[in-house]
């Protein structure tokens, strides 16, 4: 959820009298809140997620962030991607996970980034990632005809992209990317052809990406990590309309995705994790909310132990930091749960330390 998702309006503390005071302009009306219990409820656009919560498949992790939030989108996102709050991280946390899963690079599509961007969380030296925007047109030099010429050129291409010693990290990266692209395209070309589904996905960019993920997952190609984003959560203004639209898109896409997997009996081994670079300012600004600190994460799937983890941060004025919620849970502890309890890997080397884990994965 790129842009800084507003925690207070995603998981609304409806029983907190201060909420009404803080949110005169963009507050979710009490009667519209999708109640989860007598304290909190979801934004009204999140009905599909509310249903999954009631089924016990959604974990809400409260008050996630890190100390001294810079309140900058970009620096914050970098920190989330690299687990390096103090220095410039050059390696993504998921890149380390990919290396642990597949140390000998036996599968170049262990991780798939739903493009066009390659997310920094996945970037690391020597780590292959397939960056797929449209799986149907994923292929190298596909315009070359006849077939004979294509295979002649591609085999030369392969030779010329093979590692050249001593040419530097940028050339190495390019060389590896080219080779991984060739190999990944070969593997992925099977996925759309073998896919059929009774689920009609909603018409949004996030639904399209999730459909692509479902296609690859269902093809059983050994992909373990899929990454996508949905942007526009930077709701400084017109928040009421924008935030509702975004959650409508995200919620329905998630519902369609899991329905699709379930209809193929393939939902059990998928956990979806949702985060944003920061939450937003507690007090609204008349039409929206400015950059804040503590935020909320969601984990969704059959492998998730549904419920709420951690405490909702105090909204008392004296407990705010420059007007923002103080996060009580370090984001690296949430990552640790995913890495250890879901992926079965050692989290310390991935997130760079020991963090107490919220236990939101079923044992």
């Amino acid at each position, binding site marked *: 959820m*790129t*842009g800084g998702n507003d925690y207070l309006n995603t998981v609304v503390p409806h029983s907190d009298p201060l909420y009404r005071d803080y949110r005169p302009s963009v507050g979710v009306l009490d009667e519209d809140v999708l109640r989860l219990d007598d304290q909190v409820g979801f934004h009204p656009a999140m009905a599909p997620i509310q249903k999954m919560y009631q089924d016990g498949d959604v974990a809400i992790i409260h008050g996630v962030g890190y100390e001294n939030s*810079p*309140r*900058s*989108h*970009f*620096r914050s*996102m*970098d920190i989330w991607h690299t687990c390096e709050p*103090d*220095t*410039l991280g050059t390696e993504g946390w998921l890149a380390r996970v990919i290396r642990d899963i597949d140390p000998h690079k036996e599968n170049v599509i262990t991780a798939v*980034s739903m*493009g*066009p*961007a*390659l997310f920094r969380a996945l970037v690391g030296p020597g780590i*292959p*990632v*397939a*960056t*797929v*925007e449209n799986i149907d047109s*994923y292929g*190298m*030099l596909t*315009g*070359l005809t006849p077939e004979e*010429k294509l295979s002649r*050129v591609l085999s*030369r*291409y392969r*030779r*010329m*992209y093979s590692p*050249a010693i001593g040419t530097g990290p*940028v*050339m190495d*990266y*390019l*060389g590896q*990317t*080219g080779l*991984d*692209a060739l190999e*990944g*395209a070969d593997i992925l070309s099977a996925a759309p052809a073998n896919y059929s589904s009774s689920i009609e996905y909603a018409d949004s960019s996030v639904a399209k990406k999730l459909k692509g993920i479902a296609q690859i997952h269902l093809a059983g190609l050994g992909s373990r990590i899929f990454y996508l984003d949905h*942007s*526009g959560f*930077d709701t*400084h*203004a017109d928040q009421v309309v924008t935030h509702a639209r975004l959650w409508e898109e995200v919620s329905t896409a998630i519902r369609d995705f899991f329905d699709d997997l379930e209809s193929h009996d393939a939902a059990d081994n998928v956990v979806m994790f949702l985060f944003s670079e920061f939450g937003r300012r507690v007090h609204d*600004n*008349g*039409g*929206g909310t*400015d*950059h804040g600190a503590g935020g909320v994460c969601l984990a969704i799937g059959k492998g998730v132990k549904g419920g709420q983890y951690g405490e909702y941060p105090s909204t008392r004025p004296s407990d705010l930091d*420059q007007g923002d919620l103080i996060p009580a849970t370090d984001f690296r502890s949430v990552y640790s749960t995913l890495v250890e309890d879901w992926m079965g890997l050692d989290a310390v080397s991935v997130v760079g330390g020991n963090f107490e884990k919220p236990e939101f994965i079923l044992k």
Partner: protein
Amino acid sequence: MTITETNLNLMAHLMRRAGFGADRDELEHRVANGYEATVDELLHPEQQIPVDYYEFLRYFPNWWKPGTMGGRGHAGWVWRMINTRAPLQEKLCLFYHQIFATGVSKVDHYDEIEDMIDMFRENGLGHYKTILMEVAKNPAMIYWLDNHENHATSINENWGRELLELFTMGIGNYTETDVQECSRAFTGWTLTHKLPRFHMGRWDWEFEYRPDDHDNGEKTFLGQTGNFNGEEIIDIILAQPATATFIARHLFSFFVEDEPQVPSWSVTPPNNPEAVDAIANVLFESDYHIGTTLKFILNADFFKESLFAKVKNPTEVVIGTLRLVGNTERPSPETMDWAIDITNMGQDLLNPPSVEGWHTGIEWINSGTLMKRTNFTAELMGDLTRPGVKNIMGRLKSVEASPDAIVTACLNLMGPLDVEDDIKKELIEHAETFGPFDWDNDSDNENAAAVASEIIQLIVALREYQFA
């Protein structure tokens, strides 16, 4: 000036960076004119015959105020870049668009962002203060960063923060209080005719200053206290050496050598601190005059030594290829496709992913975008009917019809491009697989052209070709 290998390499470098590359005829002509004279020419776009934008509009009248034209509102700008005789002028528009990244995803109407690009085109070589003032009053920017919601009674920090973080100083040079005080000074800087939309279309947006919605109280900003308005804030910002360094680093990263991504600048020193300092000095001494600063950069040794130190951005890939192959000048449905090709390679012009702009340098490349670059370039360079490709074939005919000589000549004409010996060996081996070929008669010509064409397609697929 005589045409030597060094001169040619340097001129090709200059044209890649200060433009979108140039074919061999143009390079030879420019070398004859001289390097410094070419820099001066590039710095004076007003001396060139401007692109006749009405020609584009005659073919695509809907692109006069393209509104919400799905995903193709930037086609008019793309057409300008293909056709301009003042390439540095368009390159600078791209530079500023990367810094003042404003997107149709929120602004909704392309027209308003096009107006900002037009403003960059007009003022790009002038003072940075002019750009900042114009951007601060630009309705697309005001809407993009919510300054229309920044009121005397209740500030909205979005513009105030990004002005400091992304447009002038960078993180670490101001406090949260400075962000708020800066925002207060820009209260009342708003736009009119915003909504509602009228049934016959939408009124253009205009900047409006509303004194009644401006916070006239005293502000303390970067250690100075006074009843500041927006322009005074910009003056205070520009008086900070940190601002000159920050803009210098942007110029260095765009024109000289890829720097790490902007968000990391607060914690990572520049690759070449001396060069950035030297640029910052020129900026500061010239009141941030961009033309003066660019003249310094393009004539500096650090620039002349930075051959192929940048990864081409998608616009450079597409426009560079189109200008090279030719027969791309007339507005056509292909123009629209090419606009989308840039998007597919990861640079949706007039619609950057966020106010931070695009992640550049090596981050342009991933398995998906590398495919798209390669596929696009190889297809056009393989089209033997394109005048630019014919031109290359014509020059190759004067070269001995041997694999070695053809490969050497192709590498030269596609850059000149310098590759490792083992890569060259592969290309020669590839040419050898075709058996003997020559340029003696028409049917031989066709055969030899097929060999050369395939070699060129392999060259544009090379790693080395991704650099500018």
